[in-house]
């Protein structure tokens, strides 16, 4: 009991408010805004995993779209080739498995490097997946992408439903449930000895190696976990979007994932979640209000980087230490 108490502590009330808010959302907002929120929630799952790598391990990947695509295509290609297996309880593990495999292979290559090398390598590898998804037209639908139909659950079909009905009904609760499960698991990971080891690697790679942490291997673990989070987000996104294209493996999409994380602030655990939710609304409303929406979100990004580096959820204290970090490392 004491353990449980220490586990949730003072945030309990906030959590309860947020959970019930999420659950009641279908009754409060319009279908369109609900779906927008669901996009946000799937990205929030991705951002949680992404932040394990960026915020907690100190690796900036410009290629996380690849694992997102792995999850999304895992679902869509199952729909195409094994229509009988098109059931949520099978699809989610499939998506996790595929994103596990791809992030393990790509991660193995990437974690040999850090900093800019790592970022470029991750980018190049995600573009490799993009090229494969793009070029193997007969297998993957090429740039047309693949349609994702409404899935079953334990033999129950939602076939006679329109997608908004499905999304604002059962699927919404499923999604919120998945999100909170992902949230809690990630919270556990970052507070566990394993999470502390990752933070040690981020703070001081040399010392971490010399207190007996196998740095490269732990980086790989972090990479795989964050890749699987991306895969989960991608799979859940696939049902919301109803269509997947290779664009999600393109580095521009990966750049948007970085954007979200930074917008919310990667110094704070819940920051990227906030960022993902805000980013979706920002992008859509920018797109809706002007032809020059890229200008708006580009300028917003620049302003955030220049003025508010801690992001919206901003850890300003963290900012101070992060800026100091490179000079210390150089001296070591």
């Amino acid at each position, binding site marked *: 009991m004491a353990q449980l108490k220490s586990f949730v502590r003072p945030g309990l009330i906030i959590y309860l408010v947020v959970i019930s808010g999420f659950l009641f959302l279908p009754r409060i907002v319009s279908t*369109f805004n609900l779906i927008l929120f669901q996009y946000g929630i799937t990205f929030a799952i991705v951002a949680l995993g992404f932040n394990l790598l960026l915020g907690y391990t100190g690796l900036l990947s410009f290629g996380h779209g690849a694992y997102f695509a792995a999850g999304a295509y895992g679902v869509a290609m199952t729909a195409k080739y094994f229509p009988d297996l098109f059931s949520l309880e099978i699809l989610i593990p499939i998506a996790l498995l595929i994103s596990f495999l791809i992030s393990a292979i790509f991660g193995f290559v990437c974690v040999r490097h850090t900093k800019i090398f790592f970022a470029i390598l991750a980018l190049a590898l995600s573009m490799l997946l993009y090229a494969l998804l793009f070029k193997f037209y007969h297998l993957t639908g090429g740039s*047309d992408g693949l349609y994702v139909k409404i899935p079953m659950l334990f033999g129950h079909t939602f076939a006679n439903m329109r997608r908004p009905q499905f999304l604002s009904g059962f699927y919404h609760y499923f999604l919120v449930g998945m999100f909170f499960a992902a949230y809690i698991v990630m919270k556990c990971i970052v507070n566990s000895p394993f999470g502390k080891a990752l933070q040690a690697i981020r703070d001081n790679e040399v010392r971490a190696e010399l207190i007996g942490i196998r740095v490269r291997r732990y980086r790989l673990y972090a990479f795989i976990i964050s890749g699987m989070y991306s895969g989960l987000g991608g799979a859940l996104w696939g049902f919301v979007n109803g*269509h997947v294209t290779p664009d999600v493996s393109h580095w521009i999409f990966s750049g948007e994932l970085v954007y979200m994380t930074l917008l919310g602030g990667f110094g704070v655990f819940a920051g990227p979640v906030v960022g993902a939710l805000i980013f979706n609304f920002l992008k859509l409303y920018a797109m809706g209000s002007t032809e020059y929406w890229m200008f708006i979100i580009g300028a917003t990004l620049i302003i955030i980087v220049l003025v508010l580096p801690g992001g919206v959820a901003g850890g300003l204290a963290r900012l101070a230490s992060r800026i100091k970090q490179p000079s210390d490392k150089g001296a070591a």
Partner: protein
Amino acid sequence: MTKKEIGRRDFLKKAGAAGVALGSAGIAGGYITPRKVAAQKRAIPKGPIRMAAVSFLTGAAASPFGIPGMNTYQMMAEQYNKQGGILGRKIELLSYDEAGGVDAQVKLSRKLILDDQVDVTLGYISSANCKAVLPLSDELGGLIMAYDCGTHELMEGTTSPYKTPKYSLGFRTKAHLGIDNIGLALYIKKYFPDIKTMGGINQDYAWGRESWLIFETAMKKLMPHVKVVGTWWPPLGTTDFTAHISALMGAKPDIVHSSLWGGDAVTFSKQAQGMGLIERSRMAWSRGEPYPQEVGKEYPEEQIICCAGTHYFLYPPHDKWPLNKYFVEEYRKRYGKYPTYPCYHAYQAIAVYKQAVEKAGALVGGWPTIEEISKAVVGLSIQTPSGHLMIREDHNGIEDVLVGVSKMTPDFPFPILDPQRMEVYPAHMVNAPVGIRTVDWINSWQS
């Protein structure tokens, strides 16, 4: 406005159509005789019809393609509004850019249907966008009319015979790419029976892949001796075709089939001319109609060009079909160019919507629901500037198809289709019957 008045106005127009002003009457498009049943009157909403038009406004496909289409929507919406709108409601045209990829279009369509609650979406040039967006019509409950995309898979099932319609609220107000490629094959068989080899360069997505599939299937049936020496698949939006062109030159096909469109077609033409491909092989363009005008004098002669239907500013001849004369003149007056096939397609989309609403409105006595409108679309047969268009029960339009070769004449500053060698293949020769897949249909031909 009462029903009776509408009827009278339509009647007057119909009468007018018999006279000289057939053109404008056709545009007004009234061939509906309202039933005089005292059905329950339904209110006609006060506000304007919110009509979303989606077309390429930026990027390579904008200038030769998306913008002419959008121009036509604007022109027609204004025309209709001048004549009193549709069932008395004015059209409010909301224009959107089709650029940004499939995913952006899925999001946009969602916003249009769920958030903006538009009455109808007319649009989509890219087959990829159509394939992604049309399923949304039934999923979200919005009326979508695809106006230009060609993929035959859009409305076809996976086996013959397939069940129709695939989407109850999704339509395509034109014929699919089958007509272009079957038309090309028939034309090549007639005019160039001596060819021995062929190659292909098509964009790497549904449109290009399926265009080649139909062309190859038809050629195998019609000219089985012709060998395929290679096919190339540049992605949509390629700006550098030089490697593809030299590969084509290396393969030396007699005929190069291409379904490139938009900026890609212009870029490819320029580079192919620069590298000398045109002198070695004859191009067969499944959608080549806009580009002579776009490129101008430099456009090579003797290219086989298909018009994606009978959409050509010189066909049907203006003296025999005043509606085309009217359309070409009106468009030219406004935009300084001759209308190209996207313009004709845009006309078809907006005209089909108008006539379906009027037909359904007459039946139900008021403003019809989208389900009623979509029922009214089926079986609709309308006159368009290029002739006749019929929408079948598979929610797909069927049309005749026009093929010709380019030739420079003193009358125009760009090559036109040689009037001596124009061929029109009627709809029944180039469209598979309802419920039969195009490929299966071609394979069933008696050779």
